[in-house]
């Protein structure tokens, strides 16, 4: 593919034909803010926060959608650009709750990042503000449409990745709102609560209910792992606070990208459930009673050994697990064959 040469902030760069100005800037490690842009989704260029100055062009152009041309001269931080960005932020903040104090996305919010970066303390345009009711009627996602900046990423994620088309823009003008058909709640719509819209929301309009109530964004440590449910093998980040898993967030998964399903994203609560077994149990007089590890392990060894002694190794059998790790299944096979001395090992692959 042909290369196109251009100059951004006085630095030369060559990128393949068809690249956007944003992509060219990224190649030079030049930062351009974006709200509606997402590399995985279509590009409506609607938020305009990414505008840049192109020499010879009458207007500022959105760098996420404008394609590079040979000889283009671009400025990403010129005074008109900064002024435009500040005005956009001012306009957004003029109809955005001043709620960082307790907002679950405080610390992981693009609107906040850019307001800080460009020193926009608050919206200065007076006027009507939305006062939508908080949508909190399902156990997975909290929707606060007062915080929505109408970037439409959730709409595109739902349509282009999840293929569900549950939400779209509704109404017009100031009343424009993202909503399921007939402006119902998610739980009354066809939503399957994959939460992939939450993963792309740049502000606090869509939040994971459990996670954002229990931890601030800066308090969590993220540990990348593989999902324990079906056989797809999605990757995600476990969010850990004070030694507890408080939530799951998307990462760049090898199989799944950022997409997860409701079980992967919201099905982590079992980890710290009070029903978890915390001590070995031994049945005495028909009742399971707590015991020490030493006692339990010794009893298992003695009884399994005695059965092998009395009836032969094939009187023992083992069920391994499609839920446990490779290493554990390997060791259990080793225990079965090398120690118990039988090939009676299987698992529920057939179920």
């Amino acid at each position: 593919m042909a290369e196109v040469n251009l100059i951004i902030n006085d630095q030369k760069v060559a990128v393949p034909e068809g690249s956007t100005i944003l992509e060219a800037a990224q190649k030079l490690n030049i930062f351009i803010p974006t709200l509606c842009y997402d590399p995985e989704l279509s590009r409506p260029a609607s938020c305009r926060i990414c505008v840049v100055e192109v020499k010879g062009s009458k207007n500022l152009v959105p760098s996420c959608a404008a394609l590079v041309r040979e000889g283009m001269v671009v400025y990403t931080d010129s005074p008109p650009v900064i002024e435009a960005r500040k005005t956009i932020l001012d306009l957004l903040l003029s109809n955005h709750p001043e709620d960082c104090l307790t907002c679950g996305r405080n610390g992981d919010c693009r609107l906040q990042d850019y307001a800080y970066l460009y020193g926009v303390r608050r919206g200065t345009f007076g006027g009507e503000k939305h006062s939508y009711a908080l949508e909190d009627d399902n156990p997975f996602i909290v929707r606060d449409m007062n915080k929505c900046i109408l970037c439409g990423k959730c709409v595109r994620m739902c349509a282009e990745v999840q293929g569900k088309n549950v939400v779209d823009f509704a109404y017009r003008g100031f009343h424009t709102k993202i909503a399921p058909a007939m402006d119902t709640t998610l739980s009354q719509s066809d939503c399957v609560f994959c939460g992939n819209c939450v993963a792309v929301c740049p502000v606090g309009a869509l939040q994971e209910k459990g996670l954002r109530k229990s931890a601030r964004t800066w308090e969590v440590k993220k540990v990348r792992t593989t999902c324990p449910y079906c056989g797809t093998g999605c990757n995600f980040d476990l969010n850990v606070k004070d030694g507890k898993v408080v939530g799951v967030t998307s990462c760049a998964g090898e199989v799944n990208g950022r997409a997860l399903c409701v079980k992967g994203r919201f099905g982590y609560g079992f980890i710290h459930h009070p029903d978890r077994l915390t001590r070995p149990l031994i049945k005495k007089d028909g009742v399971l009673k707590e015991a020490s590890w030493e006692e339990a392990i010794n009893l298992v060894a003695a009884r399994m050994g005695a059965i092998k002694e009395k009836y032969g190794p094939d009187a023992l059998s083992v069920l391994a697990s499609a839920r446990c790790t490779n290493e554990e299944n390997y060791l259990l096979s080793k225990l079965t064959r090398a120690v118990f001395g039988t090939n009676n090992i299987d698992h529920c692959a057939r179920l």
Partner: protein
Amino acid sequence: MTNPISDIAGADFILAIGTNTTESHPIISLQVKKAVRNGATLVVVDPRKTEIAGLAHYHLPIKSGSDIALLNSLAHVIIAEELWNKEFVASRTEDFDAFKETVARYTPEYAEKITSVAAQTIREVARGYAGAKNATILYTMGVTQHICGTHNVFAIANLAMLCGQVGKPHSGVNPLRGQNNVQGACDMGALPNVLTGYQSVAADEVRAKFAAAWGVKELPARPGLTVGEMMEAAEHGKVKGMYIMGENPVLSDPDAGHVVRALEKLEFLVVQDIFLTETARLADVVLPAASFAEKDGTFTNTERRVQRVRKAVEPVGEARADWEIICAVARAMGYPMNYSTPAEIMAEIARLTPSYGGISYERLEKGGLVWPCPVLDHPGTPVLHVGKFARGLGKFHPVEYVPPAEQPDEQFPLVLSTGRRHFHYHTGTMTLRTGALEVYYPEEYLEVNPADACVLNLENWEKVRVVSRRGEVEVRVCITDRVPAGLVFTSFHFPEVAINKLTNPVRDAIAKIPELKVCAVRIEKIA
């Protein structure tokens, strides 16, 4: 899977048989939807009108258990209309003539009588599959959980070979596996007849290699018992002691009553799990295990990708990782089993397993690896059978249609099929304890066609008794045309609706998989 998940989006034609993909494999279904958006033709074979069936260009609401008739008929049309890939069949396969002879009888009109899929539809689907540049077949337990499960898979493989739709990108024969590490458990030799990497226990040199590595004089040569056989052996007193790690056969296995009787008959039962499951309640000793978030390790997904599981938090209470517990048991029985990390265990697996030979934790830090991956600089093998089948030539296995073992009759007039729901997983041990999923989806129901509901005079959401020859459960009724008349459906996620009390434990002769997708039941009103 012969091909990676990401390949599906690039297919021109997708034949999805017995897979409720959007509910059971939601993320794989995104690839199917992407392919459809890109213009691919989607054919869904499923008695139920599932969500994915709603997206299909052709939904074939096949009669439960008649897959072979359909698949053979597709092959019949493709051969009769000279649409098959002659070059592929000639150069890459064997036993084509026997196959051709078998399918000759399966005219679309004959198949229509068995499957209740219109002959014309069969013809159109056959032409679509054979004519596609890249066609892929996806299937799950809807194909395999039949007494002819293995033959069903043979029929699928025959079709793929006939059209040369295997051994290249965006095609292949792709079983979507239902559990996070069911592939890995098989790879690791948690099976009665093979050691790691499917090395046969019957082969002397294999046993010698493992015996030497494990420091024992000899290893047993006779293949062991499968799950179902174990339960039978336990009931007959041949198996006296059982060690169960992270499984819940009381809810997951067919004919639950029989499983409970078998486990109760044991002299000694150990269950190692994260919860006190229905199975663990029967145990003599219960060992508390760590959850996936509390240990390091690897899972192997349905496309054979080995990926890391990382410890995020300490185990709750005194719980321990399963690998640590196994080591402790081995040591208590006088066998030295000592590892300081799962990485060490993987190093041992790699030494003993040709297909895992190139896999190490160091490499996995950079990303997953798809086996076969024989040596450390091997990139992995996302697509199988390129240029050559594992066994050399691809063998056509001609198979004949056999009806399900249990047919509806006057006493039990309905067919019960079981499967999964989107919001829950397997025996519900985890998903019923999340504080979210069970809140949104708290109760299971039985799908009943309006025609049957009318005959039985059922109200929507009425609680009824479902009875089979083996047992009964009470469940609410959801009247819906998602199921055809004559078929009822529910999941096995909820202990309150332990549907496997009813299912038929009769098994496929080769893979020993139970026929969970078809059993005869009746619905009784609760007075």
